[in-house]
Each structure stands twice: as C-alpha cells, then as structure tokens.
C-alpha cells in the first residue's frame, strides 16, 4: 500500500489551477476549496482488495489503481476487441484541468471495440478498484460498432479508508444503428475524490441508455457531455444519487442536439441524508437545424435531513422552433401518511422509512432491462441506506 505520498510541484500547480465557483459550471462545486491537497500519482498499483467483488455475471477487465491488468481479465466475449495504449485527447493547454490531471502519472489509456451482441447477454465490466492512497487516472475509448448491441458496466470501487483522488475520462461512441446500455456504478469510500467525464457521441439511429448510481465518495464530479449528431438517435440518462455524511456529489450534463429528429430523456432521483450536498446541472442545447427535437429532463430529490441540500440547475438553450423541451425539479420529504400506513401494519419506523426511500429510487432502477442488474443495484442501494438512512 502506498503510504509515502509527496506532492510534487506539478500537482501543487494543478491544485492551484482547479476551477473555483467563479467558473460558471463549477458554481456549486468549488473544486479548489473542496480539494485541499492534491496528491501525487500512485506509482505501484495494488491488485485485489476486499471490496473487489462481483455483483453480476460479467466479463471483467480489472483496473487496479488506474492500471489495467491484462493477465487477470476474464475471457472476452465474442466481438470485443481491446486496443491497448490509445491516444488520449490532449488537454487544451491547462484550461481543462480534468484532462491535465488525467494525463498525469502512469495511468492507462485503452480502447474497447464492441461488435455483435455478445455483451448484451453477459455484460462487459470495466472494474475499477482503488487500493492505494494517491492520484489514479484512467482513460477509455469505447466504440460500439454499427448495429451492435452492447452492455457495459463501468464500476468504481475502493478499499475502505484510502484517501484517493481518481479521474476517469471515457469517450463513448455509439455508431449507426447500435444499441447500448452504459451503467456507471460508483461505490467508492467516503474519503474518495472522483472527477469523471463521459463524452458521448450518438450516430444515426443509435440508441443509448446510460444509468448512473452514485453511492459513495466524498467529492464526486461526474460530467456527461453528449453530442446527438445522427438523426433518429435516442438517449436516455437515468441516475440515482445517494448522498449522505459529508459527501458532495455533482452530476453535470451537457446535451447538444445538433441534427433534426432526435430524442433525449434524463431522470435523476436523489436521496439526501446527513450533511450531504448534491448538485445536478443539466444543460440542453438545441441547434437551429435540430427541428423535432424531444428533450426532457427531471430531477427529483427526497430530502431526509435538514442539514442536507440539493441544488438543481436546468438550462435550456433552444435555437430551433419546432421542438419539445421540458424540465422539472422537485424536492420532497417522506410523506407522514405513507409512513403511518406502513407502521399501522406493524412495520417498524426504521423499516418503513427504508421501504419508502427505496421505493423512491427503485422506480428508476426497475426500468433497467436486466433482472440480475436490477437486483444488484437494489442491494447496493439497500446497503447504503442501512448505513446512511
């Protein structure tokens, strides 16, 4: 385990370049004040770890402390090709701090190409596990080929008590007529900092479902940038953010509909406990030529603690006239009536609350297609609630 971390001038400089609330998109997530000490990269990754468990039957690509361990991987499903050492996108000067951070140290950059539909039966797992304190980075470039049908579980877990800062940048391209489920599961420890970006491009007739579960981390910034650039493409983003303790979780999406006849639907359900802080920023840009765009966005928060707070900021920039765009954000508390009804049947208050809280997020989880995956996610959620509810 890495114990001896020294911050070098490069990291110190980066720390100073982190965006502050003065940058509009970081208004609610002032990284410079939230990340006090920027650690040096982990040099010797460590494999294994108690929390490195399987949740569903998947072909896993193990990535420990940001490093891919080819020898430990499961057999690849048919149609999946790995491309080692892909070129990562260049940081645009130091303007984009995340890309600059992502390029530090010996982090891995590898690509995955998916053809056919083998992974829709048995998903491909990008199994990220942090075992060492320090900075780890990973870059993936994933292409789902025309007509393919893919399911990828992009999961982030860490050993308990390890203060790590991890960045992940993923470029995901869904090509013509391809269908994909992209599942992000973040269950890092409560000392972890995660800076993540998922860049998506959708070609003609592409159909992508993104599901994201945040059930861990101390500071999480998950960006999702999408360019819907092929006609008749459809994007669905569903998310569950479980935010408690002193965690700060920010999900920021930027969707550009740049051609006619595309649809997008975003739905987030957030549970706030303790002194959690949550942020959802959803920007939808509809290009002038993107007629018949149908873009919807909803963000519903269940506030279980007076000390927790959630900030939702929708932003619509619409330059076409024949479009349907809608957004809604709600913040509610548990209904006393519902609680009474359950308790009047002999269900203890704690259990009754848990049932109602789970119901609030299960409505989203249950829309996934895979039954084993639904069960696995519900179990993670139940475990989180047990600890934080």
């Amino acid at each position: 385990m890495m114990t001896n971390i020294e911050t070098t001038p490069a990291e110190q400089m980066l720390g100073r370049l982190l965006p502050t609330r003065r940058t509009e998109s970081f208004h609610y997530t002032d990284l410079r004040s939230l990340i006090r000490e920027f650690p040096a990269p982990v040099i010797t990754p460590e494999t294994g770890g108690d929390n490195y468990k399987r949740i569903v039957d998947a072909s896993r690509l193990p990535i420990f402390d940001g490093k891919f361990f080819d020898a430990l991987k499961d057999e690849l499903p048919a149609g999946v090709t790995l491309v080692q050492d892909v070129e990562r996108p260049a940081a645009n000067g130091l303007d984009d701090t995340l890309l600059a951070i992502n390029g530090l140290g010996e982090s891995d950059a590898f690509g995955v190409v998916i053809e056919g539909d083998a992974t829709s039966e048995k998903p491909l797992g990008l199994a990220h596990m942090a075992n060492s304190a320090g900075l780890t980075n990973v870059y993936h470039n994933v292409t789902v080929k025309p007509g393919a049908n893919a399911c990828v579980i992009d999961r982030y877990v860490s050993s308990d008590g390890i203060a790590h800062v991890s960045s992940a940048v993923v470029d995901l391209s869904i090509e013509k007529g391809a269908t994909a489920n992209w599942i992000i599961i973040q269950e890092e420890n409560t000392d972890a900092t995660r800076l993540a970006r998922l860049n998506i491009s959708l070609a003609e007739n592409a159909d992508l479902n993104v599901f994201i579960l945040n059930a861990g981390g101390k500071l999480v910034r998950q960006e999702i940038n999408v360019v819907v650039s092929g006609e008749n493409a459809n994007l669905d983003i569903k998310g569950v953010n479980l935010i408690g303790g002193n965690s700060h979780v920010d999900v920021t999406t930027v969707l550009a509909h740049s051609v006619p006849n595309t649809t997008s639907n975003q739905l987030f359900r957030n549970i706030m406990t303790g002194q959690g802080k949550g942020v959802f920023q959803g920007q939808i840009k509809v290009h002038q030529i993107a007629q018949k765009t149908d873009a919807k966005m909803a963000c519903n928060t269940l506030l279980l603690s007076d000390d927790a707070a959630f900030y939702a900021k929708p932003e619509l920039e619409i330059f076409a006239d024949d479009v349907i765009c809608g957004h809604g954000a709600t913040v509610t508390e548990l209904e006393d009536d519902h609680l009474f009804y359950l308790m009047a049947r002999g269900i203890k208050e704690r259990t009754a609350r848990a049932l109602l809280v789970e119901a609030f997020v299960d409505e989203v989880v249950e829309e996934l297609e895979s039954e084993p995956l639904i069960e696995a996610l519900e179990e993670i959620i139940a475990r989180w609630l047990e600890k934080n509810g």
Partner: protein
Amino acid sequence: MLEIKDLHATIADTDTEIIKGLNLTVQAGEVAAIMGPNGSGKSTLSYILAGRDDYEVTSGDILFNGESILEMDPSERASAGVFLAFQYPMEIPGVATMQFLKVAMNEQRKARGQEELKTPEFIRLVKAAAGDLDISMEMLKRPLNVGFSGGEKKRAEILQMKLLEPKLCVLDETDSGLDIDALKIVSEGVNALRSPDRATVVITHYQRLLDYIVPDSVHVLSKGKIVKTGDKELAKELEANGYANIIAAAA
C-alpha cells in the same frame, strides 16, 4: 379487550378538540358497531386507536387487554394486535404490494418472537386469502393500492387483516365503495375472523353491512362522544329515524 376511558383528543396542529370525553368498552369476542353523523369523530377515533400522531390525546386512556397503548407507536400497536382498515387506504407508489405484505407479516412475527415466514409459505397464505376475497394475484403485483379501484382498496384492506390476524379489528366504513357482491365477500371475510378471543369495531353508516356482520352492540357517536348504546335493534331504529331524536335526547 378494549376500554376507552373518558378520552379527550385534539388535532395536534391546531388544538381543536375532536374527541370530547369518549367512553367505550368492547369485550373479547364482541362485535361493536359505531354509527354517527358525518364529522362526528369516528375516523378520528379509529386513527387515535391506531396511533396516528396528527392527534394528541389530552386526557383519558385507551386500555388494550388491560394495558394502556397511548405510549406505543403505530407499529407496536399493530404487533400487539390492533388493526385498522382505513376509510381511505393510501396509495403508496413504488412499494410492491407483495413485498409490503411479506415485510408486514414478518415484522409482526418477529415482534412476537415467532419465526419469519419463508417465501413459499408466504405465497401460499396470500394465495389462499386472496382467493377467498376474490382478489387476483395480478392486482397484488402492482404497487400498494396504486390505481386500485375504491372497492379493490377495501378488499385489499381485508386481505391484510386476514393475513395479519389481529386481535382487535377496527373497520372504518369498509362497506363504502363496495358493490353488492363484494360487500358479501368482505363480510364473510370479517365473519370468518370472528372468534372468542378477537374483538371487532365496525364503523358504518348503513344497516346493510350490519345485516351481514351482525353486531353485539351498537354505539352512537356524536360530537366526539358516545351518546347512546344499544343492541342491534338500535341500528335499525337509526336506519328508520335518523340521528336527530337520539342526539337531541342525549343533549
């Protein structure tokens, strides 16, 4: 089994007194009917029995098997054997009916020191009880009460009662919203639970229900008090003449 002694209760938020010195005793094995005009406090009384915290008991006591239940929360009362079939059962989105039934049954069993039910046994019990009440298993796959028709909700309440086997059953206008066949089915369900160690309180406006569930005693509730008590003939008299005379006589 149930003794309500000079009970006074207010709406917790506003201090408005709704129950104003109510006395009622129901013996084990007894079926007591409570009748009374709209707004007289019947549902309020049922909620107070179940432990809803929108109401505050300001004086008096409620004894269940000789012990005060005022300090118990709703789940403790339910586990002790108090069951309220709601006048307006609530819809609870996202909570699957079957999951709810299983959790409720097992929590009560746990509270009583019994072993939890295994899934096959649970399913068997639910199927049998649902069959008796003409409830489809399809309906039970939906979220709790969500989109159930008025009558379906009432049947679902009785299903829960059958499965939970309470000692004190309080039925708040279970007959409203039921069609004629359903009224019969539900009444049979209630009668099947009649036993020497179980008491039932039936709140209703209509003799029709009491033709099926024949009461041992009938109590008239008016303005937060029981103003008259009689046998099943009292209900018939009310049906024929209304409340005016009785309430005027009591005042």
